[in-house]
């Protein structure tokens, strides 16, 4: 089941030969609902875990956030100074004092790299674990991690969707869909700014519909919807009955509405997150996973700093710092650290050498911040070389990060789904759990 870098060894695919044969034949036929439920049951070793992914679209500079190089030549090192953190030996950018004080609850991975300096290819890579095919760079070719989670895990609690996406900024929200898993595994999107108002499409009833009318209608429907379910051999009718129950819970039940209502939060905590889009998005994400959402992606755009990078960072990093640091602290304060994993990354790093006051696309090195998830915190995994150009220790890839995410979620990343031509496509075909993060 586990494929770990360093230490532990077990079968590649996690299946006995016999089950391989059975699954192989299912792969040809496609998975029906009962098999999905079976796969869910098998995969849920850690039932109630959840992930909050902060996607910094555009590609933030590793050298100006989590991986400063004060000893690099002037044309590389940039304007910011490193500051110590509450973990001896770890320092980060001076624009991140809040995370510096929460570093014992975080781990930094500094040696992730891949090979594409294209926004689309890179984003597809980190969102799905696969580089997109040549000539298909703008196509959501593979299911996003959130879609895989929605399919294999479903929501942790009743009355909420499994996968929510908060969309913002240029390139925000791309490659978050279900691809060949079907549109049912696209995220439920929140496309307005949670610092002013949060709404999930079709969750809040249209204004002319009162709750009592919705309930009244559903009673009428129950009386009229009496067709013999045996007419449908595919089981879809029964599946729809289940969805109807769930949808009612979401619309009329308190869980989703309560989770979306930030006004019940302590205003002091809201201030700590920051009354910014990213700040309130992180707070909302925490409320959603508490309510039972399994995977939340927050897209924060505008990290594509080709020019005026230091000025832009002075504006954008502090709100991010407040949001991420508070999210991490909040998760620990509420005892969620074992079941909620926070993941902060972009589609690539930025060129170590400064060019015209900015930095360009650089997939040769990027930093990833993680917190919680029952993983080992307070450490740095891997390192880049002196000028921040490439991994010098423990080279890792986006697939390794996602493999670790799936590990936290109890998902077998060798499970495969048929694509439109019936070819079995594994959740990931590369990547191993990052052993250093296992507690």
């Amino acid at each position: 089941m586990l494929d770990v870098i360093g230490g532990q060894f077990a079968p590649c695919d996690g299946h006995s030969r016999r089950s391989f044969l059975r699954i192989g034949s299912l792969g040809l036929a496609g998975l029906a609902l009962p098999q999905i439920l079976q796969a869910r049951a098998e995969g849920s070793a850690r039932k109630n875990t959840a992930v909050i992914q902060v996607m910094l679209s555009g590609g933030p500079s590793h050298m100006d956030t989590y991986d400063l190089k004060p000893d690099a030549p002037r044309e590389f090192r940039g304007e910011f100074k490193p500051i110590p953190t509450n973990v001896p030996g770890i320092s980060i950018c001076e624009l991140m004092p809040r995370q510096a004080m929460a570093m014992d609850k975080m781990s930094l991975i500094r040696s992730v790299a891949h090979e594409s300096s294209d926004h689309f290819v890179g984003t597809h890579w980190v969102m799905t674990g696969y580089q997109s095919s040549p000539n298909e760079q703008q196509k959501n070719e593979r299911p996003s991690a959130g879609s895989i989670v929605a399919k294999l895990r479903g929501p942790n609690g009743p009355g909420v969707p499994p996968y929510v996406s908060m969309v913002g900024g240029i390139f925000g929200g791309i490659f978050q869909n279900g691809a060949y898993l079907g549109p049912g595994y696209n995220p439920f999107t929140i496309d307005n700014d949670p610092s002013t108002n949060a709404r999930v499409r079709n969750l809040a009833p249209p204004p002319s519909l009162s709750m009592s009318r919705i309930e009244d209608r559903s009673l009428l429907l129950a009386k009229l919807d009496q067709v013999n379910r045996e007419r449908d051999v595919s089981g879809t009718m029964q599946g729809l009955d289940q969805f109807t129950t769930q949808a009612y819970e979401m619309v009329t039940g308190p869980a989703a509405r309560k989770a979306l209502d930030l006004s019940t939060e302590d205003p002091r905590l809201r201030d700590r997150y920051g009354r910014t889009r990213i700040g309130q998005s992180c707070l909302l994400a925490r409320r959603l996973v508490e309510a039972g959402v399994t995977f939340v992606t927050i897209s924060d755009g505008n990290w594509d700093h080709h020019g005026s990078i230091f000025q832009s960072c002075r504006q954008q990093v502090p709100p991010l710092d407040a949001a991420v640091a508070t999210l991490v602290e909040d998760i620990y304060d509420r005892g969620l650290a074992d079941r909620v994993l926070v993941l902060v990354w972009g589609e690539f790093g930025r060129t170590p050498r400064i060019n015209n006051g900015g930095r360009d696309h650089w997939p040769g090195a990027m930093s990833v911040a993680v917190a919680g998830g029952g993983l080992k915190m307070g450490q740095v995994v891997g390192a880049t070389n002196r000028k921040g150009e490439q991994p010098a220790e423990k080279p890792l890839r986006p697939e390794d990060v996602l493999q670790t995410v799936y590990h936290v979620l109890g998902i077998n990343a060798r499970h495969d789904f048929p694509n439109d031509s019936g070819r079995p496509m594994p959740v990931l075909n590369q990547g191993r759990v990052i052993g250093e993060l296992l507690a």
Partner: protein
Amino acid sequence: MVSVFSLALALLAGNPAPPIVSIEAAPPVVTLRGSDGAVQVIVTGRDARGHAVDLTGKASYAIKTTKIARADVAGLVSAGSNGRTELTVSVNGKSAVVPVEVSDFENVRPVHFASEVVPILTRFGCNAGGCHGKSTGQNGFRLSLLGFDPKSDHEALVREARGRRIMPGDPAQSLILKKPTASIPHGGGKRFAVGSPEYSTIARWIRQGTPLASGAEPKLISLEVEPAKRLVPRQSRQQLRVIAKYADGTSTDVTRLAQFQSNAADVATVNETGLAETQDGVGEAAIMARFGGQVGVARATVPLTTEPVAWDEPKSSNPIDPLVFRKLRELGIEPSPPCSDSEFARRSSLDIRGTLPSIAEVAELERSTDPARRDKWIDKLIDSPEYADLFAMKWSAILKNRRSLGVQSQAGTFAFHAWVRQSIAENKPYDRFVAEIVAARGDMSINPAVNWYRQVNTLESRVDDTAQLFLGMRIQCARCHHHPFERWSQDDYYGFASLFSRIGTKGNDVANVRIFLLPSGQASNPVTRQVKAPKPLGAPELANLPASVDPRDKLASWLRQKDNPYFAKALVNRYWKHFFGRGLVEPEDDMRVTNPPSNPELLDALNDSFIASGYDLKALVRLIATSKAYDRSSLPSGTNAGDRRNFARFYAKRLPAEVLLDAINEVAGTSEPFIGLPDNFHATQLPDDGFDSEFLTVFGRPKRESVCECERSSEANLSQTLHLLNSAELQRKLENSQGRAAKWVNDARPDSEKIDELYRLAFGRLAKSDERAHCLEHIERRRTEKRLRQGYEDVIWAIVNTKEFLFNQ
């Protein structure tokens, strides 16, 4: 489900297996050559009716001279020394004697890499797509997928990694033996044991100096799996044996070297020794055996009961019916009775026109006493303009008529859709329709079919789409490696590709494109780098085509040859699925030896009839829709509740996104406002994908990026339910001031008549008295609350949310 199961148990209990009157063993003579030969014996008993029963696992096996040969409990005979002896097989008080001959025992035969070592790598999953067989290999060790390229596998084992994988001086130290036995850490875990037969074969091959081939080995030409076809009861076992046939006329038992796979795990599973176990499911299972780049298939027909079940076959002159009903008889299940006229009207109208039948149409069909009324109704549907709308929508999706190049490409996509629709409306023969697409040339503004080449614009996508769309074949696997379940090699792929390698393109790709013939150009196999002459699949090469001849014209004429084994079959299977929700081959565009049809005789009959009609699509639709198979009720009847693939009843299916949206508008009394299109435009009439609709997206409208109809998602999901329950979009329709609810407020008819109107329209039938009472009670309550219009809205809302509405049954 429970009731069916207990019924089956009762049947079994009531009819104990009839006594065996004779037994026979196969093969008639066991011939073992060399020290490691092994032959699987199969023991078959027959009852008084002549029905065959597998007794291999129940029989006992005794060898007269055990020094010469041994037999295990599963019937596998292996060599001990040279000589002749006898095997006595005994079961149920009967016995059979099989001569055994062992020769060449002392002769340590060279191990043949391709036919002995590679199959081990396949059987144990080493070269599977999830491990070393994937294109990037696993941890630096890469094998060809499923062992189709023994030469490169030999290279990888013997030469790569500085030769560490093989230690000729001390075979046991070779990585190829230490890793799979987990003697040292292996990411894939332990695959076989030290000292196992597989271990010994590989060790012997290393000791012999890791030969690739002596060049003298005969070529493997085919695999046969025995018994090739058999009726097997549920919950029982059947041992299979696999025989490899070589070009020199010899054959060898390779049962223990082959890899097995079943295509229907609910009907039968198979283990690594070739022992098939039938399950609860009823129908056909194909068990595939794979060995040395060849595949062979055994078919098991698994009936609900082997006892004859009495039922009267519906009278029919339609050639489909005897074939469907014969299959049902063979499987011991009975068909459901015919559906009602109103069910038939709704079902066929949705399938042929994509619309709900009008109230008047249903009433007329019900009133008629003409025995041919359903046939006449089908004729009416086929001749309607909506038939062309619906099938143009179906074809436009898989022909990828997509505004991918932005609004500027709209002229082309609109023209292509109009061309497809016109072809369908005028009932252009299918062979001509396809020929005009695959051989399209000239200016797009004059010949709209050229649009297909604008959208399908790479060599590979042209090859893959042509094969999948028009031949029902997924050949794209063979782009990078030998097709894992088929005979197609990379040479076949690139030979087929050469049919498309002389397409010249002029124009800016957006507003207009011109396709013309290049004087030369051929595709080459990327592995061997050999240039391949154009060659249709499984047909002779078209060598030395003159510069003036377009290979695509040759392709078109090959497609429409009457003996083309794929072209017409692919279409009739696709259309069968359109009506029955399931292809005779499923998925409908993945037809291959290893995925056989559930009813081969029926597929052949449809194929022949379609060709004989001159590829007449309307005639095919009429043939299918007027069959007694198509008018069965969807309610299970008698013993057919478990049937999923033999069409004992109609399988209810969800309405496609566009059809559902149109139906909701019909019932709500509204129309869909598509930007830039006139009012009352139907979703099924949309020319391309460029019309945003949250409804259509949520309900699985295909994005037209794939040639596969499976891109149209029929899976239910929570977003759809939320949309129907709670969206502003649906609520706006219900509240529309021109809508049905608004009009009813000023409609003097009694509410019960309005309810009947609604039921007729939505379901084809009238409301049952309790249903009418529930609706009236709800409306009455709202009336007293002075919210009558909301009451109507609620009833309409409830109707479109029922499963009866969302499904075609």
